[in-house]
């Protein structure tokens, strides 16, 4: 199934789950298998390179034009990948972050702690708690702070340095 086959005509709250290229099997499986969520939410799952194939919810593995489809969703659930999180925050989206501790390296916790401490995103630290976190996603993401990015300001300096 692809993103474009989504039926946008019903009024359920639309949520997109983004796992990045690596995939996040335990999260995708947990959300896919939760039948309770289906009555309230229209959830689309990204699987990335994960091996679990969702049975109950629409899914896709990669979509390069994801950025152009952000307006189709009310909430975003994502692994704590910096590329995804900063992209969503720059677009002022309401985000629930689940650090991917399935990975061999555990550094996703660092970024999750940062966005939590700055109140930029809601954070669900453990995959097993995700159902409850989604059921209260509206309340959890209501009081988040806007992301004020400090733009990279050394491009000229980098060019000068390379030319010299």
């Amino acid at each position, binding site marked *: 199934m692809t993103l474009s086959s989504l039926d946008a005509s019903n009024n359920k709250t639309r949520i997109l789950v983004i796992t990045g290229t690596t995939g996040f099997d335990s999260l995708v499986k947990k959300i896919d298998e939760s039948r309770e969520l289906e009555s309230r939410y229209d959830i689309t799952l990204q699987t990335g390179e994960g091996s679990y194939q969702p049975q109950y919810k629409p899914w896709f593995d990669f979509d390069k034009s994801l950025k152009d489809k952000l307006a189709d969703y009310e909430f975003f659930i994502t692994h704590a990948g910096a590329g995804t999180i900063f992209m969503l925050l720059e677009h002022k989206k309401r985000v629930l972050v689940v650090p991917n501790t399935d990975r061999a390296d555990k550094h996703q916790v660092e970024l999750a702690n940062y966005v939590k401490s700055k109140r930029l995103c809601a954070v669900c630290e453990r995959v097993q708690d995700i159902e409850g976190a989604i059921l209260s996603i509206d309340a959890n993401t209501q009081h988040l702070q806007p992301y004020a990015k400090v733009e990279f*300001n050394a*491009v000229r300096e980098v060019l000068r340095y390379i030319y010299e």
Partner: protein
Amino acid sequence: MDISILLVYGEGGHHDQAMRLMKQMQSLDPTIDFIHVTDTVTMKGDSIEKIHTVPPIRHKNESFNPLAFVNAYLKAVTLTVKLVRQHQPRAVIGFGPGICIPVFMVCKVMRVKKRIFFEDWCRFTSKSLSGKACSPFSTKFFVQNESLKELYRDAEFAGRL
């Protein structure tokens, strides 16, 4: 002659950082010739011409495999030697992950004078493997989060890409 720059990055956030910097640089100087070295094929087809792929140094979902590591390392070394000879890049810019390590080492040995490394933007309180290993081979080192300046003494913070 237009100048060439080697751009080295992995997938996901590393790739995003590289594309952001490249676009900013291109807007100031469209004549720069970027030569891409990446360890993933998922991003291929971004209408980039000069793109070379190497195997990843370690796979994120698998435990460390010494054979795969040596193989990836040697392939990256060979490719870098070839690219440096062929294009004589003025600079190398790396974003992680580990694949940057052999590339930066070769660039230092082959006297690519400007070696710029950007530490991963998901790092706030710890160093990445590629950041740790590339910092001695770098001539300029940027961190993307101010808190990291405490860990990297010679690093610069100039905002986030």
